[in-house]
């Protein structure tokens, strides 16, 4: 039978021991919360560039560029992907949807523009720009010869809604302005037009025909929504299907892009955090065992005045349960505060040139693009259970084992042991 009065007196009467025990559990809990939240936040950050555009895989193909940069031209990183190849990819298990786009450069005598053709009602890709309209309206599936212009580019080009712009020699009316930088850095352009018209312009362009065959239904950028757990498997299958020149990007690609130093640092900090966590758990075990050892005289007294082994173990387990519960609550609060602090960290994820191609010879053409991602801490029930259970299981198991061993001793042995 547990005596609550004795329990509370032990907790309050031995302030230093209680503080150490509670503090240790709080520290372990806090470290565990931080490691788990940080790991999750980094994983989400690597998904950000792709999830911005509603996809978790992008597919592109490398190809040649014509000798002369005139009229519509396909950048070397976005060679044609045939309609048949798109159909094959769409049939792979785990793929939920494919959004196709056509990205091309449009050179004229005194100007250059990046154009993307898209289907306005696609579930992924540039169609998601609908949430970043700053003026006017989004393209609709029925639109023809209408275009969206990127806000900053339109200001520089002094273009306004309702005005016309020439794309591949055809007139398009600007119906809306969009701030693409708020959404994504992948496949961004100066102008966005209906997919069918982009396909038609590119298929007829001499600068494209010089190096590629581009069919009327072809595209050169695929945005794929796939089952999250099958992403890497699908990426590998697509690479195997479409050959060496295919470039398939997944969240892991962005992780690799952060470079070996980042990966090394991440691993190193993971190892350090893991070691700190293990050390702290070992300290809980050691401290719990020490708490029993330092009370051998008291345990001897308990036995001498008639407490049975079960009475003693019950009391000691209740005391340690209280320490661990209080420590866990404190640790969760501290972990929450630490996680809040960490959530203010922003990491810059580099976007490969291939995914937002711009001619090298133009100003800013070789500039590295980054997607700034703020770390998002998302605690879950699983984390809560893990952080509560680890110290509880370890602490109580240690106390039970140590107190069982000591209560099995004869009373005078306990006094002699002390």
């Amino acid at each position: 039978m547990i005596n609550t009065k004795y329990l509370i007196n032990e907790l309050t009467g031995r302030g230093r021991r209680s503080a150490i025990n509670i503090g240790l559990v709080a520290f372990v809990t806090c470290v565990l919360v931080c490691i788990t939240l940080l790991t999750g936040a980094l994983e989400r950050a690597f998904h950000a560039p792709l999830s911005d555009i509603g996809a978790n895989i992008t597919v592109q193909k490398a190809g040649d560029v014509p000798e002369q940069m005139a009229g519509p031209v396909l950048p070397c990183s976005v060679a044609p992907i045939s309609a048949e190849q798109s159909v094959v990819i769409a049939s792979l298990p785990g793929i939920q949807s494919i959004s196709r786009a056509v990205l091309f450069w449009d050179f004229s005598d005194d100007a250059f523009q990046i154009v993307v053709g898209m289907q306005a009602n696609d579930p992924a890709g540039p169609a998601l720009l609908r949430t970043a309209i700053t003026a006017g309206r989004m393209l609709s599936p029925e639109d023809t010869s209408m275009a969206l212009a990127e806000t900053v580019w339109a200001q520089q080009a002094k273009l306004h809604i309702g005005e016309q712009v020439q794309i591949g020699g055809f007139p398009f009316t600007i119906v809306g302005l969009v701030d693409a930088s708020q959404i994504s850095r992948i496949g961004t352009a100066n102008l966005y037009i209906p997919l069918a018209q982009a396909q038609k312009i590119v298929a007829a362009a001499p600068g494209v025909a010089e190096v590629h065959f581009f069919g009327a239904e072809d595209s050169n950028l695929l945005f794929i929504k796939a089952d999250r757990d099958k992403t890497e498997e699908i990426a590998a299958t697509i690479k195997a299907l479409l050959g060496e020149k295919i470039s398939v990007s997944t969240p892991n690609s962005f992780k690799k892009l952060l470079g070996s130093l980042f990966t090394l640092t991440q691993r190193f900090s993971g190892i350090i955090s893991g070691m700190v966590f293990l050390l702290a758990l070992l300290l809980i075990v050691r401290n719990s065992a020490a708490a029993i050892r330092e009370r051998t005289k008291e345990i001897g007294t308990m036995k001498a005045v008639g407490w049975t082994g079960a009475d003693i173990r019950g009391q000691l387990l209740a005391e340690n349960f209280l320490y661990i519960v209080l420590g866990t609550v404190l640790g969760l609060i501290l972990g929450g505060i630490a996680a809040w602090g960490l959530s203010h960290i922003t990491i810059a994820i580099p976007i490969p040139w291939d995914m937002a191609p711009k001619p090298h010879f133009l100003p800013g053409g070789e500039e590295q693009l980054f997607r700034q991602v703020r770390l998002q801490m998302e605690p879950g029930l699983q984390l809560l259970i893990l952080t509560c259970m680890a110290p509880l299981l370890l602490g109580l198991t240690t106390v039970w084992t140590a107190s069982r061993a000591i209560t099995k001793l004869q009373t005078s042995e306990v006094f002699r042991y002390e």
Partner: protein
Amino acid sequence: MNKNKKILTKQSITVQNVSKHFDTVSPVKNVSFTVEQGEFITLLGPSGSGKSTLLGLVAGLEKPSEGSISLQSQEITGLSEDNLALLRRNSVGFVFQAFHLIPTLTALENVSFPLYPVKMDIKERQQRAATLLGKIGLADRADHLPTHLSGGERQRVAIARALVNEPQILFCDEPTGNLDSKTGKEILDLLTSLNREQGVTLFIVTHDQEIAKLSNRSLFMQDGEVTQ
């Protein structure tokens, strides 16, 4: 708790051919004696003669290597640790030389400590402890922690704790060993009055001849052997 107690028999403690060996050392060698209910016995002997070991054996704090021990006609040498604890809870009180009070509990709580695992009304438990504290003259010190009590007061609390389960036998290991002579005498008066007035069997280990003079009978221990 009283319901569980066995009917008192004349022989309170029976020790037969008891020995205790630790590797090559034998602090208790083939000891036999009996103690009548209500007797006041002192166990005398020089330091290292085996007195405290014998006390531990008789009180069930330790198991003998050989021989048998009965308390209140119950053979205890074959009992498990838990059954020995229950026997002590129901029939035996123990007073240590070093008091062994729980430092985080008040005097009143220390006295009621043996009853914590017993299913009984909290008020009844507190009342019983308070009555005992009153009897030993410490009613006004009930709320004090052991660190705020003098050595004599601590030993009184330890005695009250040993009595709270209304034992038939009270074992004391050098109960005045850590006290000055005046306080020691007060403690001794308290113990002898318990023996006289309540018929509690008193078994005191001491090297103090003055205590021995007060007892009904003394056992002498030398090199692990007992002479009467």
